[in-house]
């Protein structure tokens, strides 16, 4: 290698180094507080004002201080791994799995702490391991008090995650879920709810100073759901979570609280107030602004009735232009059916063969007269144009209503709305109270009182179903099954009292509607 070539090579390296340093220093400039390019500068200045790394960090809230509290221990451990943080986290994760398999809870807990110190902003780690603690590890213990303690450990773990990731709504949501569902829907629900109410230390640690009577797990969980909603309303990302499901949990916690009150034997004004509040919160949920899954159309869950009404109005106006036209078109189409089609369509459903079912379905589709088809059949250009406009509007309203119904079904919207409405009625409250007292009397062996209470309860249910403002209530399947369960508890009381089931039972119509489905579900012949 001659000296000149060596010299040239060194110059080339030097130039490359300087060039790289320039690029790095430009990228690594401190933030100007303004994401460049958006100022609309033109020419070279505009190009040079492309956001640097600091600007981008600020814009997307990625800096350590913006994500959450800084943990000095975590930062120290991260530095100490000398770039092998991911490897260390993997090794620790394997160790944690091993400790869990060997039921070494102390070391498992300590290892999870170490993992989260290495990966404090990896949200899945927090969510996965919190679930591990509250749902998997807790069930390994036989003592319900230990199970409760480990559920709380999982929640504390999540809270630590929230401190490190203040803008993550799912961590907050998870706390709400664990408090409400893990405690409220467990086999040990009575014990867990009691332990939570008595757990002064945990509430003190959480900085939650509400009195013991207000430490209902559903209400505490509801507050956490509310915090999660606040984060999303301020712009936090829900990632892959369905918004309707996410936002439904706060009002659902209120509903579950109402049910829990009644299971605890609390009725009358307190329950009525709780259901009333549940109804209001459900309405607020229904009024919330959502976007469809494709992100193109906004909707509100409450809007179905409005769209149905608007569609019905337009359809009525449309049909009034030429009354009877729809039936005429349908008849024409029916007349043009083949004999086989007509035979299949006219046959009673239970007597149709497989092929006839197919044919009957096809005929049904053929006989459907859409609003647009109706409008096109109207005579007179002016009337037809007006009809077409109405038809399109009505179709649009119906499509919107159908679309929103799909979203409603995800959260069982109509059921819970109806439930909140009727449960606060005096008849429902009284019915629930009598049934509760009947069950208590049955457990205490007082069959006479049990029978009396159940019968009073059924009388109240009758009054409720006879109310004009709940006309469709008796067709509600979920309520029907609920009632069948109560009826069968009453039957057990009668069996033990050697009394026959009364022929003039006040809810015979409900039995006709729902008893078969109940028996099928329970496997009763």
């Amino acid at each position: 290698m001659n000296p000149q070539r060596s010299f040239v090579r060194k110059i080339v390296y030097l130039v490359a180094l300087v060039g790289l340093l320039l690029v790095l220093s430009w990228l690594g400039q401190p933030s100007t507080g303004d994401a460049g390019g958006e100022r609309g500068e033109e020419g070279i200045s505009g190009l040079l004002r492309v956001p640097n790394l600091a600007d981008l960090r600020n814009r997307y809230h990625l800096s350590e201080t913006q994500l959450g509290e800084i943990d000095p221990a975590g930062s120290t451990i991260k530095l100490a791994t000398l770039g092998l943080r991911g490897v260390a986290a993997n090794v620790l994760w394997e160790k944690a799995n091993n400790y869990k398999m060997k039921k070494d809870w102390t070391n498992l807990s300590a290892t999870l702490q170490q993992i989260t110190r290495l990966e404090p902003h990896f949200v899945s780690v927090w969510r996965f391991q919190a679930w591990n603690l509250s749902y998997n590890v807790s069930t390994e213990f036989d003592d319900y008090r230990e199970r409760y303690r480990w559920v709380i450990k999982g929640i504390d773990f999540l809270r630590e995650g929230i401190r490190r990731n203040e803008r993550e709504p799912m961590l907050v949501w998870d706390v709400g879920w664990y408090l409400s569902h893990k405690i409220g829907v467990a086999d040990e629900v009575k014990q867990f709810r009691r332990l939570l109410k008595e757990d002064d230390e945990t509430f003190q640690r959480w900085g939650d100073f509400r009195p013991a009577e207000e430490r209902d797990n559903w209400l505490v969980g509801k507050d956490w759901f509310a915090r999660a909603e606040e984060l999303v309303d301020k712009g936090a990302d829900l990632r892959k979570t369905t918004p309707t499901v996410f936002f439904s949990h706060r009002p659902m916690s209120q509903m579950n609280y109402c049910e829990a009150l009644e299971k605890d034997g609390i009725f009358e004004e307190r329950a009525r107030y709780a259901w009333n509040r549940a109804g209001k919160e459900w309405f607020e949920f229904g009024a919330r602004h959502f976007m469809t899954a494709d992100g193109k159309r906004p909707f509100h869950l409450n809007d179905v009735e409005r769209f149905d009404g608007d569609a019905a109005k337009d359809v009525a106006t449309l049909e009034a232009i030429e009354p009877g036209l729809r039936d005429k078109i349908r008849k024409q189409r029916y007349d043009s059916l083949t004999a086989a089609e007509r035979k299949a369509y006219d046959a009673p459903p239970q007597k149709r063969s497989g092929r006839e079912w197919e044919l009957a379905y096809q005929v049904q589709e053929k006989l459907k007269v859409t609003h647009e088809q109706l409008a096109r059949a109207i005579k007179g250009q002016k009337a037809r144009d007006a009809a077409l406009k109405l038809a399109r509007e009505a179709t649009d309203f119906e499509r919107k209503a159908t679309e929103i119904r799909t979203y409603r079904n995800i959260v069982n919207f109509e059921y819970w709305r109806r439930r909140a409405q009727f449960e606060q009625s005096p008849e429902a409250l009284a019915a629930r109270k009598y049934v509760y007292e009947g069950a208590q009397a049955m457990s205490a062996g007082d069959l006479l009182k049990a029978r009396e209470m159940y019968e009073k309860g059924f009388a109240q249910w009758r009054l409720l179903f006879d109310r004009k403002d709940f006309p469709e209530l008796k067709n509600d399947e979920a309520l029907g099954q609920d009632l069948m369960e109560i009826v069968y508890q009453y039957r057990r009381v009668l069996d033990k009292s050697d009394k026959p089931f009364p022929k003039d039972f006040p809810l015979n119509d409900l039995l006709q509607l729902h008893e078969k489905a109940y028996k099928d579900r329970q496997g009763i012949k």
Partner: protein
Amino acid sequence: MVIENVLPPFSEWIRGAALSWLFVVACLTIGALVLGGFVLIVRYGPVAGTRYAVRAFFGCISDLAFMSPRRVWALSKLAVKESIRRRVVAVFAVFILILLFAGWFLDVGSSDPAKLYLSFVITATTYLVLLLALFLSAFSLPADIRNRTIQTVVTKPVRASEIVLGRIVGFTIVGTVLLVIMSAVSYVFVIRGLAHTHEVVMESLKPVGTAPPGQPRPRAGYTDSAQGHRHKVYIDSSGMGHVDSEFGHWHEIEARQGGEGYVLGGPEGMLLARVPVYGKLRFRDNKGSDVDKGINVGDEWFYRSFIQGGSPAAAIWTFPNVREGKFPEELPVEMSIEVFRTYKGEIEKGVIGSLSVRNPRTGLIAEVDVFESKDFVPILINIPRKITKFSSADVIASKRETPEGVEYSPPQNMLDRRLADRKEFDLFKDFVADGELAIWLRCLEPSQYFGAGQPDLWLHAADARFTTNFVKGYFGIWLQMVLVIGFGVMFSTFLSGPVAMLATVGAMVGGFFSDFLTRLSQGTVLGGGPFESIIRLVRQENMLTELEPGLRTTAAKMADVVAEGGLRVIAAILPPFTNFNYADWVAYGFDISWDPWIWVPTVRALAFLIPVFVAGFFFLKTREVAQ
């Protein structure tokens, strides 16, 4: 505490171990001789090569046999001076730093803080000391050779064996001194970290229960919260107090002198060294036959087997050497069992079980205790010498199904049922036969199960001193340190410093994962051997499904067979470091018995060190020959 690999007594172990060791050493020696001779013959020709080989062999023998302790000691002192010059005290400074900031890393809300603290100090010390040993041993000789300072040693009448041994001993002395200081600091750290007390919250004391006439009612309340927990407090009618155990400890309580209120002492029961006597476990199935394993309830870990409740099933521990002198007044039985429910049942009550004692010779069995189970918490049951309270007594034979038929012990015709027709029994006279006693654990509730492993029930013979046990725990670290020094010096005799360090790290990692390597070499790890694993990784396949049959899979499996053979050799020649780790013993509060838990690992370490030292000496000698 979990003991997955139970060691036999030293006297039982040594025979087989010594023979295996001699066999392996003989094979390695012969192999080395043959290989060395072959290399010399190839290099120098048959005559000269053979001459060199014979000379080298006898030279090695004389070097090993005629080592001078004085020279070894002089070289050790040199190694110590060198280590001090290399600022090994820095390790101690790092250790102190770690302890100072340990509070950031330790979970103060842990339910077993003693275990956490002890595990932490032992683990931190282990890593630091092994790192120290690694750097000291791996870089010393290569640095001397590179700087030619070794010339000042080899020009003197010093044998290669003395150089190697001198360094090993010297670095061991340095490491031992540091380890002693670190153990003292750790001890203080643990004691101070766990020390705490509580105040009784007087407003919380409420009357409970009834009292004799004229005496105040007992009261129950709780203490204030400290270190993430509080205790329940009971004050009886006479004013005596009792504090419930919480987080593995309790406190002594006494009335405040000359004032109202109560004073609590420091934590008790946290730092223990229970001396356990373990028995041999077998099971009885739900038909009453003896079997080696119980039921698997679906646990992925097979350490514990389960017995069915409400049936003849039982877990049976047989203890040898149960003597009156050891247990003069009562037999303290401790157990930590697992409970498995197939239905929740009474959630607020534990599953009921019973403990029985049985004479293995006569078959006399008495159910001495019925208890409510608590899983993962040790239950202590004291069986009195004079047994007057028992739920039932009977005489039953244990039966085992064999290919020849059913075997009964004792035989059915020798069962004397009159033995059970008494109201009182003597534990030793009636239930211990030639020092042997059987303890039966049963689950009394149908459809519920108890699970146990062999070490899950033990006789609590005595309480040793925690401090002594703590020192024994650090002895395990010392053994690991000596092994690392040995390997480091050995590798440094023929490799450069960084490469020797890597090789030693490789030996350490292999040693720490020796269980895994052994299972890998036996083909019992899910996902197959190394080549099959590569295929699964690249194709992102899981570990459970079979690979697609084909040439690639066949080739990988064949390569794995070869690799597994190699892994078997590596797993055998690397010391299993986890076997020298006593952290769990100290953390869980069990005394590390001399026999076998100290003697066996010590002899094992020596068994690795001797060949490592000889190999190191040989490599250093060969370098001289080569030069």
